């Protein structure tokens, strides 16, 4: 165990390890690109769907079941399947990661919308606000904390799962995990795993900091 950690220290701090197309710098950039782009695409799909379901109250059954369906979908199988169908393109990675992220965002957005006090909604309508105004100026701001929770959860899952991309010959930090597995080089596997975990934790902290800055005027997120 000690040897492994010592090796990890040397692996992470070696300057040659950070440079070049197989260097940590490049792999990190690839990993961030897969994760952030996939989460953005997922948000672009899932947020309107979640808001619409929450606003109209229709399709709640779909929202709830979608989340357990999404959790059950085996990412490895999905990546391989899309890879076999589409050949060597970026589709397998993005389709699998977006499919992973959409359910968390839809369910949390929906949950945020249902948590909005109906009296507040009625008051907004009573004041003569139009439906889109109620949605954008009243419901959306009140639902934002839970929406952000969904986005953070999705991002963590996507960052951890983007590792799988390396199996179908893509880059990202998963390269180290799969190459290390093939070469029986545990230091490399550990290095890749630690980097992925650090990226996930840092991105999560960054989003929660963003959330605090954006809503600092609000006394409490539960109110």
């Amino acid at each position: 165990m000690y040897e492994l950690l010592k090796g990890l220290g040397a692996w992470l701090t070696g300057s040659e390890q950070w440079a070049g197309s197989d260097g940590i710098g490049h792999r990190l950039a690839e990993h961030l690109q897969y994760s952030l782009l996939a989460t953005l695409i997922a948000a672009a799909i899932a947020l309107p769907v979640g808001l619409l379901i929450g606003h109209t109250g229709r399709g709640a059954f779909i929202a709830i079941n979608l989340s357990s369906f999404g959790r059950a979908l085996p990412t490895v199988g999905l990546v391989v399947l899309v890879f076999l169908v589409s050949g060597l393109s970026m589709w397998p990675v993005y389709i699998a990661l977006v499919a992973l992220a959409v359910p968390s965002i839809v369910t949390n957005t929906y949950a945020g919308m249902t948590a909005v006090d109906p009296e507040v909604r009625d008051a907004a309508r009573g004041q003569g606000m139009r439906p889109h105004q109620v949605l954008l100026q009243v419901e959306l701001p009140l639902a934002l904390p839970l929406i952000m929770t969904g986005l953070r959860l999705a991002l963590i899952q996507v960052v951890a799962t983007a590792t799988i991309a390396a199996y179908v010959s893509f880059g990202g930090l998963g390269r180290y995990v799969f190459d290390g597995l093939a070469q029986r080089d545990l230091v490399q596997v550990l290095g890749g795993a630690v980097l992925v975990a650090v990226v996930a934790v840092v991105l999560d902290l960054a989003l929660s900091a963003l959330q605090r800055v954006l809503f600092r005027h609000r006394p409490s997120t539960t109110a």
Partner: protein
Amino acid sequence: MSVDWSWIADHTDDLTALTLSHLQAALTAVLLGLLVSLPLAVVAHRVRRLRGLLLGLSNVLFTIPSIAVFVLLLPVSGLTRTTTVIGLTIYTLVVLLRNTVEGLDSVPAKTKEAAKAMGTRPLRTLLTVELPLALPVIMAGVRIATVMAISLVSVATYIGDGGLGQLFTDGFQRNFPTPVIVGVVLTLLLALVADALLVTLQYVLTPWTRRQKQGA
């Protein structure tokens, strides 16, 4: 992309064996996860200071890619079922721990005081009052953990296990989509059936939640 039905017909025995092995790995992991998270959750619920530490730790474990966990366990337990089960158990912890703590938190203070006033000892209160009342929230966690474990078993295919996940590597290596499609569909079905059974189990275990609704 067309499904080769004759391949499926020729491999029904293999598919049954893989499905059972898949289910066994996932269920063992969830049971172990419950065994580990129950005492931890009680500690996190009672000792405020340890709560953040335990929940934070399980959150960090969740960010480590599952494939890496399996590979890093190889020096400890080798290419065995044990490695698969330990790896999966680690992932179930984050959901099980959080939900069990939340479940225990949701028990009204008045109920616990009433138990105390009646002279019920702390351990007995925990087992006969707090845990049963926390059961709906705990069961919600068990459902999520089970579905997650069933989906994650396939990652262990990279260390030579993985139940239905073996169909994914098999299909990938032979450039043959049928096993991959069958693997995805069977995994989804397994998760669906397991979830439905857990809903039924919860219905049977918590009769008082129904009686309340009828009385209201």
